[in-house]
Each structure stands twice: as C-alpha cells, then as structure tokens.
C-alpha cells in the first residue's frame, strides 16, 4: 500500500462546548477526488481547517503524504480554493496577481517574481483557460471563472493536495462542467482533491469517492452508494426522503458502474 495522500486519524475538535468533529477518520489515496458531503455545521470546514493545520485538534492526528501538515504547507503542497463569500471581490488585484500569490512560498523575502514564477503563472492561467483575462480585476470575472482563477493559483503553487470549499456555489452548468473537467485532469496528473459541496448533482461526475460527514465520518465509498437516499437521510436528517432530492433523479446512469 502506498502512503495515503490525506490521513485523518481519530480527530476530535471542540469549539468551546460545541463538538465540531468527533473522532473523525478519513484516508484518501493519492490522485483521487473525494466529495465531502454534510449539512451546514456538520464539521466540513473544520475538517478542512484541521487538514490545513489552522486548528490544532483536541485529539487525533493528520498526515499528508506521510508528513505533518506544517511541513507540507512550507513545501507548498496544499492548495486552497475558498468559498465565494470568503473573498473580497472588490479587492484591487488582477487575476494574474492572485495566481502569482501561489508562488509566494517559493520566493524570497520580498516575494519578487522571477522569470520561472511568471512562466508558472502563465502556464497555470492557460491551463484553466483564463489567459486572456489575466489583466482583469478579479471581481470582473464570472462565477466559474473566479473559481478557476483560484484553482490556477493552486496549480502555479505546485500543490499536490487541493481543498475546494463549495466550488459549485454560484456557478452555472457550463462552468460546472469546465471545472469538473479541469479537476479530473489535475487528478489524473496525480493531484489529490478534496471537495466540500452541497451540490449533490455534481458529485457522481466529479468524484471517485464520497464521504458523508456528520461530526464523524458516517460513510466513505463510491459516490453512487454514498448518495443513496437512505444514506443521505442519515447525514441530513430523515426529512430529506420526503423532498424530491436532486441527487436521486440526477444520479447519472452510466456513471453508476464506472464509479
């Protein structure tokens, strides 16, 4: 067995009295895309923060490619694509500026860009098909383009593990397909990708595996199995069965076998 790309072992996190993660364990092999599904407050963002080392868990440990998260961070191994609401889209930066921020970890004291840095940024922008938009202020992109700009930042950084928080929120169908294709490409190049999403539609297309989270990992398996209504009901509460939940009618038929 190869070393897992992400190993979350028995992690517990409290915020004051509130329990966010309860002995959560998760193992993810390299070059896989994993969808993280759970309600608001189920601990998805907490799990991200623990993997990035922003929160020290009360118990348990995290390893990324067998080493500590802080070491991986210093090597530029972790890329992060924030939720739209977390970003100040009025900030006076161009798409190029934002992608260049992926290179900072590789640069010297003043973060002066070298030729190699600029080449990496251009390449990343081409890869996500934003080359022509490099000079735009970031707020002047469409929802899908914004997401791709941040994915480009992770590519320029050389991240081997990428964490995406709600990448499909506020994104139209076509951009969703573009992002899905892009992430699949990155995974086939060896990048391990963890995606937290409410959008159960997109999961079977995008993910190799899915995780149901409700403070602990309730289930981890192929998306089709995890997205069975009876399983979703465990994570989201029973009323989900009564609603016509999108995941059911959309579970793409051909995907069922490939997953």
């Amino acid at each position, binding site marked *: 067995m190869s070393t897992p790309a992400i190993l979350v072992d028995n992690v517990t996190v409290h915020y004051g009295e509130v329990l966010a993660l309860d002995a959560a364990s998760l193992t993810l092999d390299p070059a896989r895309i994993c969808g993280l599904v759970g309600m608001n407050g189920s601990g998805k963002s907490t799990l991200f923060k623990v993997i990035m*080392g*922003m929160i020290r868990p009360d118990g348990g440990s995290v390893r990324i490619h067998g080493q500590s998260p802080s070491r991986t961070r210093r090597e530029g191994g972790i890329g992060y694509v924030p939720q739209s609401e977390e970003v100040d889209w009025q900030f006076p*930066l161009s798409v190029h500026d*934002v992608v260049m921020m992926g290179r900072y*970890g590789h640069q010297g004291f003043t973060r002066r860009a070298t030729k190699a840095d600029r080449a990496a940024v251009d390449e990343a922008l081409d890869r996500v098909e934003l080359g022509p938009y490099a000079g735009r202020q970031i707020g002047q992109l469409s929802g899908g383009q914004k997401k791709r700009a941040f994915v480009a930042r992770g590519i320029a950084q050389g991240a081997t593990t990428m964490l995406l928080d709600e990448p499909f929120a506020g994104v139209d169908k076509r951009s969703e397909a573009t992002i899905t294709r892009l992430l699949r490409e990155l995974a086939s190049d060896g990048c391990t990708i963890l995606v937290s999403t409410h959008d159960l539609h997109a999961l079977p297309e995008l993910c190799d595996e899915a995780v149901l989270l409700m403070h602990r990992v309730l289930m981890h398996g192929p998306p089709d199995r995890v997205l069975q209504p009876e399983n979703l009901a465990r994570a989201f509460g029973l009323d989900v069965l009564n609603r016509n939940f999108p995941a059911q009618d959309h579970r793409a038929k051909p995907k069922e076998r490939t997953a």
Partner: protein
Amino acid sequence: MELLLEPLTYDFMVRAIATTALAAVVCAVLSCWLVLIGWSLMGDAVSHAVLPGVVLAYIVGAPFALGALVFALVAVTLIGVVRNTSRVKEDAAIGIVFSSLFALGLVLISVTPSQTDLNHIIFGNLLGVSVPDLIQVLVLGVVAFAILILKRRDLTLYAFDPTHAHAIGLSPRRLGALLLGLLALTSVVALQTVGVVLVVAMLIIPGATAYLLTDRFSRMLVIAPAISALCSVAGIYISYYLDTASGAMVVLTQGVVFGAVYLFSPRQGLIGTRLAKARRKKAAAPAV
C-alpha cells in the same frame, strides 16, 4: 512663484513641510492596507491609545516610539481580551479601550510638569517642529516605510486571503502583528505633525482616495502617497496664507480631495457612474 517661495525663507516652515510630507507618505502607504482590511477603526484606536505611552516615555526620558509601541500592544491585547471573553462586540471593545487609554494619556499630561510639549502631541505642532523632532520622524518614518515596501506583497496577501497565507506556510498572525506594529510606529511619526486626534485621517483618507481611482493595488501604493504628500504641502501653504491651524488644514485638504475624487473619479465616482447608467438607459431605450 513668489507665493510658493516666500514661506520657504523661514526655517520652521521648511521643517514643517519636510516633516509633514514624510509623515504623509508613510501614513498613506500604510492606509492602503488599512482601508482594504477594514482596519480603519483599529487605526483610530491605536493612534489614540499610544498617547499614555508617549507621555510616559517623555516622563522617563525614553524614546517616544518605544512607549507608543508598548501601548499599541496593550491596546490591541485589551481589545482582543474584551472581545473574546465577554459578550461585548468588537467595535464596542475598540471604543472602550482606546478612549480609556486616551483619557489616561490626558490625565498623565495634566499631572506632568512642562505641559506645553505634551499638549502639542494632541493637536500637533507643525510649525514648532525642532531639528531633533525632524530627525526622529525621519528615522522612524524611513524604517516604517522600508518595512512596508519590502513586505508589501506579504501584507497584501494577508489582507486579501489570510487562509492562503497560512496554507503556503506563512503566519497570518505574525503578518497581522507586523502590520499593527507598523501602525503604532507610523502613529508616532504622524503625532508630531497633525497630532493624535487627526492622525487617523492621514491613516485612512489617502488609501480610500486611491482605492476610488484604481483597480490595482500596486498603483494604490503610488497614488495614495502622492496625493497625500501634495495635500499636506498644499495644506501647509494654505494655513500659512490664511493663518489657520496647520495640522487641521492638512487634514481638511485631504478630505476635500477625497470629496472631489468621490464625485468625479472616472470609474468609481458618483457622477461618472450615474452618467454611465443614464447613457446605458438611453442606449437601451430605443430598443424597447
């Protein structure tokens, strides 16, 4: 020309202009980050809270900057403690801490002999800048400016996306602390010129003005100090000829320029955007 040269025949005017321009540039550069992070109130707080530190430094004969840094730290810590350990919200915590510390400074001034010097700290004393004052402002200003410029990319990253800063192994906490430290240092620089009460103007207005003029942070870092330096020098000249308070005139000039930019900036200005809207409406009308 005569009008511009005449004041320069007085040494105190030359010193006033040099000090103000320098303080204006350093404050303006810092203000670019403060307005984007949303730290204007923090700027207000720290610039007021350093007062007791400056007075105590004066009493024991230590450098003003040291006292200011210590009290900036005290203020930020107290704000954090009040916010995190009680139900009081951040803006209230900031208000309580900085006004209390400012009051402490005033009390200390009232019991300290040789009050004249210290009263100048409150309202500034541009025309009374001595040569040692000028040297102190120069040293502190150059240090703060150099750190801001050398670390500008990290500070911008911190302002824009602290999570990413963390993800690539930088420490957002340390960057935030660096920015607060520089805020304290810069406050001391500006104390000499416009005084504690008006420092906050120099720490907010230039950055806000530049923000309305460009979509590039790198350009903000040029526009803000340029506007701020021009306004300061203009303000001093105006105060010279109109015989008004010089520090206040500098701030007033900056405020007026902000007002003009707010109205007339091509892309962000109130009038520009209204006109563009009207034009779009007109263009759309025949089609309907």
